[in-house]
């Protein structure tokens, strides 16, 4: 899947991020309200406000610390932070960007492998079928994450309840979807 990760222009992480997302990090005045409301604040190794702080200061080592953090992968994109931020900093978009950049620079935190694998499996399923095939996704995800046992107990009962389709639903013209993926991967390489 890495072939569709955009190539960012040269510049510091902050300038790239600001350009890509429109977020301006100097707007953050470090009040911490984002972190205070973040449902995963306890889990995070670098707190949301601290990520912005590091982007503001750009001291040596900060970029690496951000890109290899677990936090960027834990972020659920729930937007609690942004909806309450007094300075209207769109943190979730910052997080989106940082994840993409983390993959591009091969700095994904080892503990985030499961999460990343899931995202990738998900997209592969769409690429193949145009829609999500949940059985296919589960199998694929398990192969990637090597997390074989998890949910195995759940799957049969889901099928019994008619909640999982064994054969994938497909859009009529799956090639079309594959083409979109291809155009984007080409488009973003320029």
């Amino acid at each position, binding site marked *: 899947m890495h072939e569709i990760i955009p190539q960012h222009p040269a510049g510091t992480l902050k300038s790239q991020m600001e350009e890509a997302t429109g977020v301006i990090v100097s707007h953050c005045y470090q*009040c911490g*309200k984002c*972190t205070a*409301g973040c449902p995963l604040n306890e889990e995070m190794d670098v*707190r949301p406000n601290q990520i912005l702080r590091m982007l503001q200061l750009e001291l040596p080592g900060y970029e690496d610390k951000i890109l290899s953090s677990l936090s960027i992968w834990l972020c659920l994109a729930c937007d609690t932070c942004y909806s309450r931020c007094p300075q209207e900093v769109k943190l979730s978009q910052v997080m989106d960007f940082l994840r993409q950049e983390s993959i591009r620079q091969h700095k994904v935190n080892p503990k985030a492998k499961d999460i990343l694998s899931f995202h990738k499996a998900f997209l592969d399923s769409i690429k193949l079928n145009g829609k999500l095939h949940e059985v296919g996704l589960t199998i694929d995800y398990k192969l990637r994450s090597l997390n074989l046992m998890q949910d195995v107990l759940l799957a049969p009962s889901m099928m019994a309840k008619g909640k999982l389709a064994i054969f994938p639903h497909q859009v009529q013209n799956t090639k079309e979807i594959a083409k979109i993926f291809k155009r984007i991967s080409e488009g973003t390489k320029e």
Partner: protein
Amino acid sequence: MARIGVFICHCGENISATVDVAKVAEKAGKLSGVAYSVDYKYMCSDPGQTLIIDAIKEHKLTGIVVASCSPRMHEGTFRKAAEKAGINPYFCEMANIREQVSWVHPKSDATTQKALDIVRTMVEKVKKNTALTPIKVPITKTALVIGGGIAGIQAALDIANAGHSVIMVEKKPSIGGHMSQLSETFPTLDCSQCILTPRMVEVAQHPNITLYTYAEVEKVTGFVGNFEVTIRMKAKSVDHSKCTGCGTCWQKCPSKKIPDEFNEGMGFRTAIYSPFPQAVPNKPVIDRDHCNYFQKGKCGVCQKICPAGAIDYEVQDEFLDVKVGAIITATGFDLKHADFFPEYGYGQFKDVIDGMMFERLASASGPTAGEIRRPSDGKIPEKIVFVACAGSRDKAKGIEYCSKICCMYTAKHAMLYKHKKHDGDAYVFYMDIRAAGKDYDEFVRRAIEEDDVHYIRGRVSRIYEKNGKLIVKGVDTLMNGDPVEIEADMVVLATAVIANQDAETVAQRMHISYNKHHFFAEAHPKLRPVETNTAGIMLAGACQGAKDIPETVSQASASASKAIGLFSSNEMTREPIVAVVNRQAPPNFTSCTGCMLCMEVCPYHAIEREEMKDRTGNLIKVAVKVNAGLCQGCGTCVAMCRNKSIDLQGFSNDQMLSEVMALLNS
């Protein structure tokens, strides 16, 4: 035929070192219309001035140009000299050949040529000058003070003590403003009522002060020294000249369940009421929106029992026209109220209150007699959380500014709580502590060091209620951003200071400007902080921006001194540099077409509509005229006028054009 005199100054050697002054004088003498030209060592010295006066007389000069320093230095000096010689002082112009020529250029032909160019330019200008007379405006030595908070009270007393009359207009039934609601005040923790009440009484009793409560300013016209003001006296339904303030009426009034504004809704009042025991005047008014007689047509209890026969249900709002010379606007502020903080449950949970409610809880005259009890069940909170910057410095909520007083009153609140509940826990969530006044930071430190208040740096994200506790979810940014969750019994939000709801209307009635948050605008943020752009209208207190009592009082005294200064003479003299609309014989009256473009751009609202009527009173034409009392002479209107109907005396179209032509055509 103009006979102009030109006087070239050497300024010691300041000018003559680089400009060939003799040559300038010689060439100037040959300019058309110049009847006399001379150079001299020091024009501004006594002999220099005498030289000018003598020359004017001797050569029958009609105007003079003094080529020397900047007009900002000596324009006054030379104009006076001209006047002494018997010509109108506005026939004197200066050519600035020192600051803008000799001091900035080397000795050269070009420098001399430039000096000559400037002289020629001013000669052409002075030829177009007209005789002007300084404007004299009589002054009505009465001040109007709008708003009876501490700002209005201070200003009124200062002016009244200086011997001038004051009319005070307060929209509520009593003066006192927010300060009358406060418990104790920072940074000294003295009792607010104790220091305020004597002054309220002094206002009521002062022979020079006329107090109109339950009244509002409806209209302001005129200009500095000569305002005409219409005051609306809202119907009190009680004749205060008869009422003795005995209180029988409000004890017996059956409409008792009206939320009490003075106690911020934590308590009730009756329909006929005096807002608080120390009110001035301590006589009631009927709140018609809640009175049974006015709403349902029956009751009349108060009228029946009033021993003085003071109740009058029939009175209507009355209007009073007064003339004043100066106006002090002291209408104060408001606080942001509930519904503003869905994430903090403000307005949803009873025990999430604002700072003013806390003041009432802490006040000995408040609904809990000074015991800090939470509104929901009356329990004394064991754990209390204060949230600073609640709504202030919050772009997302539309208020970017700092409310300035809340850091201090939050520290005060935390202290008052700790003083009354020694074993209680007080937490303050803050972003920065802004305590920059004299003895202010010490005050905050005392809260932290002596009273053991826990300050946590971080903004609260959410407050929700569970099992009778308020769960406050914050963060400690000084501890690596660790989440902090406090189960509090009560939360006090230091909500933003905002302008009054009617501030915009008030400003428009007075023709004063205001910022986007509707705080009134001072004429200059540093050097004219108490005046407005409308001459004669001053600002005092929190209507201009959030401020505490010391600052409010200083500003009130400062604006009072501006009024007193104005009243120190019987009339004012102003430079006649004002705009005029041309006048022609009927039926044209003027070339002005009444497009009103000038009116829109005038920063001082000096341009007024004028209706031209024939002898029988039929409207012939609508045009404009300039109120010379308001005009400050900026000339913006002149540049706007398409048909050159409005012109600026002293900088007229004719004069400016002659300058341009003269400068370029040697």
